[in-house]
């Protein structure tokens, strides 16, 4: 994910901004006067993706329950709980103020904004993987594939998203 990459020039974030623009509708890359809207848009996109994952897992859960596959249903249930926890984290995450952005005491630099864009991109990338894996999960369940493995991988990806999103707060607090 380019963890060692230093983003000093806003041009370096162009790739990420474009990528996020493809995922998040109306993504403004934390432009002045649109920083809060951008933050809300990222969060809403995370929530939407989480909902999609949840729907897929719920479908598998319901089928597993009706088929008597309690083990798979239980795993789906724990995955759903993980998604609910992610939604709760995102819903109640701090949104910052109008001005200055995210902190009343410190100002925002382009460097930190670039770091935030990169972090959002990484979060969304993992989340997209989770969505794709949940889609594979439902397909595997329908085709008698290894649904258990797929649901566990989905849960792992959701947990990764949750953990990665929790780092966002640290990134925001690091804004100087």
């Amino acid at each position, binding site marked *: 994910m380019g963890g060692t990459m230093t983003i000093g020039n806003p041009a370096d974030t162009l790739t990420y901004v474009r990528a996020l623009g493809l995922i998040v509708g109306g993504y403004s890359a934390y432009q002045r006067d649109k920083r809060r809207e951008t933050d809300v848009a990222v969060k809403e996109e995370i*929530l*939407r993706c989480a*909902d999609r994952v949840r729907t897929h897992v*719920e479908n598998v*859960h*319901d089928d597993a*329950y*009706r088929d008597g596959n*309690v083990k798979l*249903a*239980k795993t789906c*249930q724990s995955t*759903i*709980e993980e998604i*609910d926890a992610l*939604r709760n984290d995102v*819903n*109640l995450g701090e*949104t910052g103020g109008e001005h200055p952005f995210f902190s009343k005491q410190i100002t925002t630099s382009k460097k930190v904004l670039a770091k935030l864009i990169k972090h959002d991109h990484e979060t969304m990338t993992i989340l997209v993987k989770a969505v794709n894996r949940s889609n594979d999960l439902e397909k595997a369940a329908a085709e008698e594939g290894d649904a258990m493995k797929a649901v566990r991988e989905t849960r792992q990806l959701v947990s990764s998203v949750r953990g990665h999103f929790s780092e966002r707060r640290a990134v925001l607090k690091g804004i100087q």
Partner: protein
Amino acid sequence: MAIHRWRDTPEVIARMIDTGSINSWATKNIVLKPNETCVIMADGKIQDILSETVLKNYVGGFTRWLGSKIGVGSRDHKMIFAMTGPFDLLFKMEGATADGGRVNGMLNMRLQIQRDDTPKLVNIFTNSGRELNRGFFVKMYEQEIMSRVVVPLLSKQADINAVRTPDFADMLEMAVRAEMRGSFDQYGITMLRAFAVVNETDLEKLQSYTQQTNVMAARADLVNETALAAIDRQQSLTLARIEAEANIAKAQARGQVEAALESELLELRKQEAEWAAERHDQSERQDIELDGKQRKMDIAMSAFEQVQAAKRARMEQQSNADLTRQQNTDDIQREMMKMAADNGALTPEVMQTFLEQQSAQKGQPDSQPASQETGPITTCGNCGGQIQLSWQACPHCGTSL
């Protein structure tokens, strides 16, 4: 600036209001917290879903009231407020297990209205009032949950113990999630958790009561046994004391009796000695008398013996005389036989007669026994001689009889 509060009690989950229904002279702000959302509907359309913001001067005020009167602005402007945080509902749970045991309890469900799902609450407002509280949701879903989830699931459980297992808790949550998902989605509600709290059943109460009764009975038994043991111990001690006292009394009595008996024994021995002396004296006297009688008896016996000896001598002398006489007779008869033989007259009849005479001579000294042998007498048919009936042949003629 005044703030309009859309709810004043935690029981309220959602509410729909007409902005025109808020009448006040001054306009009011509406503050939406992170766990609150507001759906704005104007002219039948859902315009926006808001959260974490302040709707400034959004409701109330004279100018807004005036505008509504003169037809300025939206005629139909509604706001749906909802709490997007998790809220718990308690459903009364009733059913029966497979063994017929009644199960009563509470089903706790944790639900949530997602921000994007808030407009779906319109489906509820269409058929009910403008305020939705927990009681409303319980009433709305209670029967469905009971009939689709609780009763079927309980009927599969063997007994009340199965209802208390973690497996049942998992199955219940799965069943609620699977069976109620469609109904919840229809009104924009998301189920987070579900679990059952089962009350104590009648059977368990009975078992508990039985256990308590057993404990009380056991305690009573223990108390009774302890009391009985104490009584037994007391009784044993009393008996031991009585026995000891009795033994002492017996020993004392035995001592007194022994002393009296010894005294009496001494008297008896003394008397016995006296009687022994008397008996000895009498015995001596009797011995003396018996000696005298014995002496007389011996004299008599000696005389008797002498008489007997004289008798035996006389009989022996007589016997010798008889033998001599017989010897003489035999000699005479032998000479007569010899003379008859010489003369040729020794016939069998003569010989027989001779023998008979000799026999008669021999039996003469003991004539009495011979006469005893003589039977009835008859005559021989051949010779006419006298014969006895018991004879086998005639001694006179030798004819067989």
